[in-house]
């Protein structure tokens, strides 16, 4: 447990915009991504995928494929170890289907061959006998009694009512008397909303190289958000000891939650084990769309009551999420986040997870929160319009603050929502004039943020520089921020510190890079590792000076006598201490291992201006401003980048991005030409406004900042478009045909 008592507020390095350590490698093409890795004798691995959205697999005959010259191995689910644990079984079944293909594109078999052409030919020679089954891809249809059942026996004990067995879980959060609350309202609005499934849209497809030797040892190089979790999953699926599998994370070309699990890695390991050769698998973009993990699609109903002066009296949300062909818990995060921005006497958020014949959902930046908050913030906005009230005033009037009992249970401590709302209110954007066909939208957003398992080793090099090994892939600038926090604590220049990402043999277990946890948790561990090294260095100096260790203090990168009584010694710098490390006891290193707690929640407020084209229904974002509480912004460039990146992804989600399924259960737009993420020319300059309300759970006041920024854009855009159109829209994405239809009534 971590409970810092003193939060440092006076910094020399934190808050500056130092050069990013990965910048040169990335702009010169030298950075090594997953697909860049090769080994001698390496085979090409490919995956055979189901042509049916739902089908029984009666048999798989690979004899013709194996007879093809150059084909070295074919694997199916039978090559995986049996799984007792439900979670592990789902991951394994998603990597290679077990008995049933659960969605179009579901992996059925893997092949390894000496070259790509042979591997492609071999795929065609694998004979799979399917019996097609009825399928369902829509959340509301899948929930109805009589719907085709994706998997039997997954309904949890708390699911009641007249729903199909695709409904795997029910959850509810809240407090207070809803009936009495709604009775106090001057007006009540209840609306239903739908959001499409979207993909994280990372630029780098999944890629890995697996090499397993005949003595059972294996190495895996892959692009991932968490090499330790990959080891856990792969070792379990393959049936080997974790100690015998070393996983090294490559540079990563985006993840946003989508690289927190495995799809191809166990298949590559199984192929390598069977063939005795290294095997490389690189997904195509089409495979990424069809068979990795998009976010959930949702169907929601939100009812809110308000007094004429803008006080919310009661709020009730019902959220139905589909997360593909397996059980998923994302709806519980949506239900918890839905009303978190508000101080409510009576609130209830209910959630249902529903299975469909779609790919297994993976996390996507604040998983579950954007679509729930979209529905809530849309109804709040419509109520403010109904009463002719100011949208930010209404949110301020109802805002959660320190001491508020949150809608999901705990009482908030220091939070920054009011500060972000007030900053938005004072910003010139909020009062800038709007023209014809233009509208302005407002939305709050919230995310929990986490800590988690973390190990850091900090080595004092012989020349007085510092090497740090941490275990979380750098997806948002963590190598810079970790080096900055070490330099700050040690009192040395940033340039003297280099942080690298260790493999799974280098450190104890580190949780995945997710939950906006790394700058918070790894930063905390780094500060403590630096303090450990400082204690050791002060101990060495005490021996040199022949005084008590307590009489030596660390200041500005050097050991000093604590006062006149300690003796009259010249300070010894870190470099001077390092230079005599061999003589004073050997190498010096600091370590820290923790399951970090104390990550503070984060709030954001976004303002969006849009203009609608009444001829085409196209929406142009004119101006966008994002306000967010970052705790302490370690490296403001990166914090701003997180705020801008989340906003851009949210704008895409709101306006264009969607998984489109035909009646045949097949995804119709499995490529970036038809699945349209916003490009630079689609976006305005997104202005980030950082607020710094220190997190009491971190020695430097740091909060996670990576996820909150994707939560507000959906409603901010919908509210802006609805105000510009003069009619409320209730479905995302707000693609031109939908906006045009709304404009034409």
């Amino acid at each position, binding site marked *: 447990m971590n409970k810092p008592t003193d939060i440092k507020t006076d910094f020399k390095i934190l808050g500056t915009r130092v050069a990013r350590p990965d910048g040169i490698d990335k702009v010169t093409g030298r950075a090594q991504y997953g697909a860049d890795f090769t080994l001698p004798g390496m085979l090409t691995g490919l995956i055979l995928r189901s042509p049916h959205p739902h089908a029984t697999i009666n048999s798989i005959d690979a004899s013709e494929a194996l007879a093809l010259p150059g084909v070295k191995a074919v694997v199916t689910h039978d090559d995986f170890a049996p799984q007792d644990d439900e979670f592990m079984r789902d991951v394994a079944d998603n990597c290679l289907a077990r008995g049933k293909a659960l969605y179009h594109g579901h992996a059925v078999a893997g092949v390894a061959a000496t070259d790509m052409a042979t591997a492609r030919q071999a795929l065609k020679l694998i004979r799979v006998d399917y019996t097609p089954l009825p399928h369902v891809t829509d959340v509301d249809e899948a929930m109805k009694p009589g719907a085709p059942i994706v998997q039997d026996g997954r309904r949890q004990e708390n699911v009641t009512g007249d729903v199909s067995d695709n409904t795997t879980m029910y959850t509810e959060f809240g407090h207070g008397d809803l009936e009495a609350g709604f009775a106090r309202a001057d007006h009540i609005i209840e609306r239903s909303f739908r959001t499409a499934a979207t993909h994280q849209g990372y630029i780098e497809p999944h890629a890995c190289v697996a090499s397993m030797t005949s003595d059972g040892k294996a190495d895996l190089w892959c692009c991932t958000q968490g090499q330790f979790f990959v080891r856990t999953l792969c070792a379990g699926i393959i049936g080997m000891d974790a100690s015998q599998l070393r996983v090294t994370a490559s540079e990563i070309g985006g993840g946003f939650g989508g690289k927190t699990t495995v799809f191809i890695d166990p298949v590559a390991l199984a192929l390598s084990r069977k063939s005795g050769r290294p095997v490389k698998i690189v997904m195509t973009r089409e495979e990424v769309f069809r068979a990795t993990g998009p976010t959930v699609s949702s169907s929601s109903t939100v009812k809110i009551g308000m007094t004429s002066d803008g006080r919310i009296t009661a709020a009730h949300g019902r959220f139905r999420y589909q997360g593909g062909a397996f059980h998923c818990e994302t709806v519980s995060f949506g239900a918890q986040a839905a009303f978190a921005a508000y101080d409510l006497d009576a609130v209830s958020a209910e959630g249902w997870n529903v299975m469909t014949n779609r790919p297994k959902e993976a996390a996507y930046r604040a998983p579950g929160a954007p679509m729930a908050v979209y529905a809530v913030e849309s109804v709040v906005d419509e109520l403010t319009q109904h009463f002719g009230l100011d949208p930010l005033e209404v949110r301020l009037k109802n805002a959660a603050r320190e001491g508020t009992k949150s809608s999901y249970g*705990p009482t908030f401590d220091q939070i920054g929502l009011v500060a972000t709302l007030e900053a938005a209110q004072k910003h010139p954007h909020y009062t800038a004039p709007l023209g014809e066909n233009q509208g302005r939208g407002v939305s709050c957003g919230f995310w*929990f943020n986490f800590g988690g398992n973390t190990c850091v080793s900090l080595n004092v090099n012989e020349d007085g520089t510092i090497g740090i090994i941490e275990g979380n892939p750098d997806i948002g600038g963590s190598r810079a921020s970790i080096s900055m926090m070490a330099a700050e604590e040690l009192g040395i220049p940033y340039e003297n510190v280099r942080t690298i990402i260790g493999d799974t043999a280098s450190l104890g277990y580190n949780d995945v890079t997710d939950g906006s946890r790394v700058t918070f948790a790894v930063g905390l561990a780094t500060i403590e590792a630096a303090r450990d090294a400082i204690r050791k260095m002060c101990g060495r100096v005490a021996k040199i000076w022949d005084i008590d260790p307590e009489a030596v203090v660390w200041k500005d990168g050097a050991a000093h006598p604590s006062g006149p009584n300690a003796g009259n010694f010249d300070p010894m710098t870190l470099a001077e201490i390092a230079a005599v490390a061999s003589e004073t006891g050997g190498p010096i290193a600091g370590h820290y291992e923790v399951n970090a707690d104390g990550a503070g929640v984060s709030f954001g407020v976004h303002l969006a201006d849009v203009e609608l084209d009444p001829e085409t229904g196209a929406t142009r974002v004119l101006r966008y401003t994002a306000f967010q509480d970052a705790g302490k912004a370690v490296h403001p460039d990166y914090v701003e980048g997180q705020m801008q990146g989340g906003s851009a992804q949210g704008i895409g989600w709101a306006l264009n991005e969607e998984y489109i399924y035909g009646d045949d259960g097949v995804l119709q737009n499995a490529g970036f030409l038809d699945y349209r993420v916003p490009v630079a020319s689609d976006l305005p300059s997104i202005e980030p406004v950082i607020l710094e309300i220190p997190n009491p759970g971190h020695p430097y006041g740091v909060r996670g900042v990576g996820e909150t920024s994707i939560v507000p854009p959906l409603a901010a855009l919908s509210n802006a478009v609805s105000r510009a159109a003069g009619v409320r829209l209730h479905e995302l994405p707000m693609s031109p045909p939908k906006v045009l239809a709304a404009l034409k009534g």
Partner: protein
Amino acid sequence: MVQVTLWGSLRDAAEGETVVEVEARNFKQLLEALQARYPGLKPQIERGVSLALDGRVYREAWFTEIGPDSEVVLMPYMKGG
């Protein structure tokens, strides 16, 4: 005794209550006490839970001490992207 707030859908597993009292000095004892007193909570606790102590969310941390006046809220196991 520690007062624990459950989330709403666990009410049926806890004799209709969303606020229950158990004897516990840390999270490990609290989870054990909850399962012993309300066996219906066991499936969810085994699937994974987080605990909020005085507004802070803890995903594991068995030995986190709970004071007599601490606010304790049971939450689903949290994850992020």
